[in-house]
């Protein structure tokens, strides 16, 4: 496969929604960074949204569960919830090829 996702890594963008940087939130953030680095590439970006700092975004972005991860790019967006301990589920849910 020539067209690996790694070649397009800079086009991948993830939002991680948390409510306060709790130990659970920190752990989910570490897991997401590792998962993205391993399966997408170093150029993909991860942005953390702390809803305790920006509470209005919960409604604007339609966030129900914490943690929530949204793959905003490439489109269409993909969403998973939970602390990302299930790596295979996260890859599948976020549409990342397991290579």
């Amino acid at each position: 496969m020539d067209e690996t996702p790694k070649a397009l890594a800079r086009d991948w963008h993830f939002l991680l929604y948390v409510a306060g940087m709790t130990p659970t939130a920190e752990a989910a953030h570490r897991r997401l960074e590792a998962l993205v680095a391993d399966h997408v590439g170093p150029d993909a970006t991860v942005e953390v949204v702390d809803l305790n700092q920006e509470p209005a975004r919960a409604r604007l972005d339609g966030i129900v569960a914490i943690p929530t991860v949204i793959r905003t790019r490439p489109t269409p967006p993909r969403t998973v919830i939970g602390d990302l301990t299930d790596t295979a589920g996260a890859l599948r849910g976020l549409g990342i090829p397991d290579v």
Partner: protein
Amino acid sequence: MNDTSSKTLTYVPGLDHILGGGLPTRRISLVTGGAGCGKSVLAAQFLVGGAGAGEPGVLVTFEQGLDELRRDFRGFDFGFAERVDAGEIQVLHVDSDTLPDTTTGSFTLDGLLLQLEGAIEEIGAKRVALDTLESVISELGDSANLRRELRRLFRWLEERGLTGLVTAEAGHGEAFTRRGLEEYVADCVILLDFRIRNELATRRARVLKYRGGSHSGDEHPFLIGPSGIELFPLTASRLEYEASRERIGTGIPSLDEMLDGTGVHRGSSTLVSGSPGAGKSSLGAAFVDGACRRGERALYFSFEESPEQILRNMEAVGYDLRPWVDGDLLVFESRRPSQRGLEGHLFGIQRAVEEHDPQVVVLDPFTSIAGPQETGPSRSMLVRLVDLLKGRSITTMFTALEAANLSGHSASQSHVSSLMDTWVVLQAKRTEGARHRYGWILKSRGIEHSRYVRELTVTDEGIEFVATDGGRGEAAD
């Protein structure tokens, strides 16, 4: 004794009565029922009622967005959209389409809590309704994690001082809800039930549970009319014969014969449609005459003729109703169609029914007050009327003026006939200079009825449906 200080009025007519004063304050109650039972309407009324009493509310909806809700509730006159526009009701639409279907580990519902917190603070909400929980569960997947979070959500709302209700699908058997959600809302559970029983469509409300409060555990009929849900709290004794499979005669032996030999179900509604002079009022007269002969009380609403006119006309066709009137078994209520609006008629009918407490009612002709409209007030009024009468186990005959045509029915009556259990069609025809009247049964729910046309004879001994063509008659369709 009721401690009304710890109860919050729902403002749903009749419901607060069976709740012994309202829902438990600062608690989340559960409303359970099947699809189409009226759960969402009840939730909306609870919030609208609160808004009118200075208690704003938040509606969390998982299925319908604000535009859809506006459309759905436009048919009701309780003013949902106006309360939303006035900022007294906030609609929080959690679009289940955007909820993820993948769960990668443990989670909280803090996102929803933050959304709720924002909405509650924005309007100073005192009430909250969540409709329905099933949708969020089916999206996020049923798990111990989700249930723990739902429990936390309810306790959080209660701690913030909100009184609320959640709606959920009804369960079978011992379980109040399909997913056993009653475990999380332990204080008050209301069941809304919509079912067909003995061929009659009935709506019932029941308080299944009310911790620490007095309530009526009986089933109470309700209807969904233009003003939303309206309960008719009844005593237990009244409901007992409601569910009976009893059949009663129509007052015309040959018509009973066409109805499986025994007549119609008690508490059912019969439509008699036909052209002018086809014999509709005569059927009505026979119907009340039969009832009075059984010693039952009857109420005859006449929208075109005066009681004196009807008594005279009916005497000529063999029904002497005067003794029943003199003996107070039969009461005539004569009302002019133009006298009052449709609503006024309904209330007038309700009041007369309550006063006279009849077992049998005739509305003749119903079409002169309801009009031929397909939708709108006449249909909803008819729904309320039918529910009111069925709720009291009253057997009713509605006559309807219908231009004669061969099929005997037209689209203009489809909205009426769908609510009727039995439909008798009458027709007057001129053949070879002589006038003939015919009648047949178009439908009768749960009754093996005749499908043949019979000739209607009216003599001074009453009406008969005479079988033509060697006793069988011609097939009606």
